[in-house]
Structures are given as structure tokens and as C-alpha cells.
């Protein structure tokens, strides 16, 4: 049987189009990845054959739909090696997952003077929810610094930062701006020794490398479907069951109660406790199919593929005049972000689009880090399973042309 890798671009019909008279070169995968036919067809099939509201349904379609939804939960459990499906809560995405932890775990566990430890490379989605709960509880937000030209976490500062006041350490697995891969297992081990709860933002790692919550040793892990070859509107919060069972609901409604009286209500355990209202079951089914797709390719192979493209792009872009490339020179996630002297990122992106090359320019929801680096915006090229080396040629040629125009 031929490997899925051989015909991988056929799985993504969106790629076979011209943009502004050039073949589309889609390098905006850190924002969202494209979806393979197996995933979109599964979604079609679900709506065509099985759709009905999940849970409590006594008719055939509802039972089928419930089975598919809970089957997806089990599939995700296996995908990240969680212990039990009850540890998998479906959300709208990474942002909602982190808001859930901050609002529910945070409100029950954070007191005035407690410290929420983040890093300077967090996406706004792993920063603003913590600022909000800090305001409500009187907790303080501190940051592990990003250090050096290569944008690594300053691990030497950890010992002095991990004070007894720290209750939670939340950090990104792979930086969406620097491409840095953080040593998640090491960070979690050091936090756990001190009884500090850990939250991993896996938005940029989940679709690109093996992610095993027990190997990482985290308490919570958040990710989005649409950045891992799945559809928008579905994401996951993994939580260790002992923690989830002690957490209060964060939204109320149908599906999450065990009984309701006019005087008050009692909650179901996880995951239902955290999934008030009709869940996004159809997209959850699609997410399960994406897990199959990625495991079919092999996540270690995906990491190698994306990392090699990013490394080659780094090396080739380095030759351009006036370029500053962020992040590590060595091993990195599948993205490269960079800035040119005197040419703004948005002008670069507009010119690249003219060549059919889809890039992202801006602060990448990373404004505090940008300020620290003395930048207002960068251009980002991010790679995925369907990208090929010749697309780096197109990227570099487009950048050279843009620089020439603005010189």
C-alpha cells in the first residue's frame, strides 16, 4: 500500500489552485492548517447519515451520534495518551480551553498574593485569561524571561521564580512567534516537585509532533482542532481527573447537571460538568478522523518533515540582506518568523500574496514579546505536511523581489 505521504497533496484539493496567477503556496499553517478530504468527507457523511443531538436520546440516530461523539473522545484520549476519556473535554479551541482552566480551577484555587507563572513567549490566549482571573482573585502574574538572540526560555531563572507563592505554571509547548520548542517535560517535572499545577498550550505542537500528556507530565493541556488538519470550532482541554473532579463548573446549562431543583443543582462529573449545552459533536467526530490522519502519517515523521522545511527556510532566508530571523538556529517547530530592515511585515505579506505565497504578518498575538524584542511585527512562514521544498524557492524568490522593490 502506498504511503499517505506519496499522494498527500491530493488529500488537500484546496492547494491545487492559482492565486494571482501563481500556484498557491500556503505557508500560513500556524494560523490554521488545511483539512484533508478524509476529514471533510467524514463531516459530510456525519451530517448526511448520523446527525442528531447527543445524549439522552432514545432513538437510533441519537444513539449513533452519541456513539460517534464519545468515540471521538476516546480517539483523542489515545491520541494524547491520557488515562481516561473523562479527562478529555471538548471546547471551541485552545483559547476556550485555557479560559476554562483559568475560570474554573483558578477561581477555586487562587487567592490574593498567589503567583501565576507564565512565560514571555505566551500567545495572548495563554496570557489574557490569566490576567483576568488575577484581577478577580488578587493573584499576581509573573513571567519566565525569554533570553538571548535565539529566543529560549531562561531556565536558569526558574529556581528563583518558582517560589512557594506560585500555584500554577502555564506555558506554550511551541512558540507561535519564535518557533522555540520548550522542554515541556522538564518544566512540568520541576513544577510538580513543588506542587505547582501545570498548563501546557499545545496549539502549535499538537498537529506537528508526538504529544503525550503522561510523558510530559502536565496537569492540563489545551489545543485546537483547526491547527491539526481538522475543522474550526472544536478543541480540547485535557485535565488530570483528580483535578477536574474537584473543579466547579464554569458554565451552567443542560447536559452538565445530575439534578436540578429550584433551590439549587448538582453537577455531573467530568467531562459533562464542563460541557454545558449541546456540544459541538459533529466537529468532534471530524477531530477524531484528523487524529487518524495524523497517526497514519506518523507524528514523528511530521515533526521531521516540518522541522526540516523550517530549517531550510531559515538557512535560505538568512542570505537575504537586512533580515532578522527570530528563534532558535537549531531544532525548531515548523515555522520561521523574520523581519526586514525598513520594510514592514504587512507590505511584505501583500507582495508575497501577489506571488501566490500565503504568509502572515503582524504581532502574532504576542505583543509583549514583540515589544521586548524591539519589533512591532514580523513575517511568518509556517509549514505543514503538504508543503514541499520547491515552495521554499517560491518564498525566497518572493522575499527577494519585495526587498528589491523597497530598496
Amino acid at each position, binding site marked *: 500500500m502506498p504511503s499517505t505521504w506519496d499522494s498527500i497533496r491530493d488529500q488537500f484539493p484546496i492547494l491545487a489552485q492559482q492565486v*494571482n496567477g501563481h500556484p498557491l503556496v500556503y505557508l500560513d499553517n500556524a494560523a490554521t492548517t488545511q483539512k484533508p478530504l478524509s476529514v471533510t468527507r467524514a463531516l459530510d457523511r456525519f451530517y448526511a447519515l448520523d446527525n442528531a443531538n447527543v445524549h439522552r436520546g432514545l432513538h437510533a440516530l441519537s444513539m449513533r451520534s452519541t456513539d460517534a461523539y464519545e468515540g471521538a473522545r476516546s480517539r483523542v484520549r489515545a491520541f494524547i495518551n491520557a488515562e481516561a476519556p473523562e479527562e478529555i473535554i471538548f471546547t471551541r479551541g485552545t483559547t476556550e480551553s485555557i479560559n476554562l482552566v483559568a475560570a474554573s480551577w483558578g477561581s477555586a484555587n487562587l487567592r490574593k498574593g498567589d503567583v501565576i507563572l507564565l512565560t514571555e513567549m505566551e500567545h495572548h490566549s495563554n496570557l489574557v485569561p490569566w490576567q483576568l482571573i488575577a484581577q478577580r482573585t488578587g493573584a499576581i502574574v509573573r513571567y519566565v524571561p525569554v533570553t538571548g538572540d535565539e529566543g529560549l526560555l531562561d531556565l536558569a531563572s526558574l529556581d528563583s521564580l518558582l517560589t512557594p507563592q506560585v500555584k500554577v505554571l502555564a506555558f506554550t509547548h511551541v512558540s507561535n512567534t519564535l518557533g522555540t520548542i520548550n522542554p515541556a517535560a522538564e518544566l512540568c517535572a520541576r513544577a510538580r516537585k513543588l506542587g505547582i499545577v501545570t498548563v501546557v498550550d499545545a496549539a502549535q505542537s499538537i498537529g506537528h509532533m508526538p504529544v503525550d500528556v503522561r510523558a510530559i507530565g502536565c496537569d492540563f493541556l489545551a489545543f485546537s482542532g483547526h491547527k491539526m488538519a481538522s475543522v474550526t470550532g472544536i478543541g480540547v482541554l485535557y485535565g488530570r481527573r483528580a483535578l477536574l473532579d474537584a473543579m466547579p463548573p464554569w458554565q451552567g446549562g443542560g447536559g452538565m447537571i445530575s439534578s436540578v431543583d429550584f433551590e439549587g443543582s448538582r453537577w455531573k462529573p467530568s467531562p459533562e460538568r464542563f460541557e454545558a449545552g449541546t456540544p459541538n459533536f459533529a466537529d468532534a467526530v471530524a477531530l477524531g478522523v484528523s487524529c487518524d490522519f495524523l497517526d497514519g502519517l506518523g507524528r514523528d515523521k511530521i515533526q521531521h518533515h516540518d522541522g526540516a522545511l523550517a530549517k531550510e527556510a531559515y538557512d535560505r532566508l538568512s542570505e537575504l540582506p537586512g533580515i532578522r530571523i527570530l528563534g532558535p538556529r537549531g531544532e525548531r517547530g515548523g515555522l520561521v518568523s523574520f523581519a526586514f530592515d525598513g*520594510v514592514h511585515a*504587512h*507590505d511584505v505579506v*501583500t507582495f508575497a500574496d*501577489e506571488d501566490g505565497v500565503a504568509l502572515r504578518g503582524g*504581532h502574532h498575538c504576542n505583543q509583549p514579546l514583540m515589544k521586548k524584542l524591539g519589533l*512591532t511585527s514580523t513575517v511568518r512562514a509556517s509549514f505543514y505536511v503538504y508543503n514541499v521544498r520547491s515552495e521554499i524557492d517560491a518564498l525566497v524568490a518572493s522575499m527577494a523581489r519585495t526587498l528589491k522593490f523597497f530598496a
Partner: protein
Amino acid sequence: MSADLSDLYQNVILDHNRRPRNRGKLPTANRSAHGDNPSCGDQCDVFLRLDGDRIAEITFDGSGCAISQASASLMTTQLKGKTTTEAEKLYKEFHEIVTSGKEPEEISDLAAFAGVHAFPARIKCATLSWHAALNAIKGDAAQATTESHKD
């Protein structure tokens, strides 16, 4: 280069981007306002000295793409010496140019921005400094943000 792109990056715009006019703080300013475009991070401060109803001096400072920087630069050259009423009228004309692509009746460098209309995502870049300037004229200390405008 496509016609759309060469219309967007006209020589007037490239020139103002390379050599911005009236850039920097204005020590004699009696009005100022800050503008930002949260979706892309562009920033623009406008400083001006109002002499009665007339804009005696005007400068800008900030960071952003060529369109936003050139627009701010060109705006300062256009607004200097104008009355506040004339400034508002000029903004309406400019807004019409960048949203419709219609060139102004009178010959004006503002016409260079007609190409922006083909790139709807860039209209905010062109109008940011104008919003800040109008806020400064009104004495509205509130930050101008492109999010509270349609463009």
C-alpha cells in the same frame, strides 16, 4: 507586478514611506492624539498646534506598513495651514478616495491612495493617522482605534 499592486504602491506613497515628512514629536503642540490598529499593531501619534481654528503645525510619529506611514506623512503636508473645517472636509474626500478608488476633482497627492480600495484590508492602514488627527483637533484625548470605525 500587477496593476493593482503598482496602483497601491505608487511613487508618491513609496517616497513618503522612504522619506517621511513632519515625523517626530512637536514641542509646541497644544493637541495630540494616539491611534492604533489592534488587528495589525500599527501605531500613530499625531501632534498639532492649533492657532485659533487653524492647524499651524502638525507632526506624526509611529510605526506601521508603508501605506500607513506614507498616509500619515502625506496627511501632515495636506493639513498644515488648513482650518479644522477644511481638515474634516479633506478627510471625507480622502475616505471617499480610499474606499471607492474615485480620484478627487482637484489635483492632489491624495489621489495616490486611490489604489488602496482594491485592498480592503489596507483601508484601515490609510485612515489610521487621519482618525488620530481628527481626534486631536476635537481635543478628544480618547485613543483613536480603527476597531471603532468601519474602516
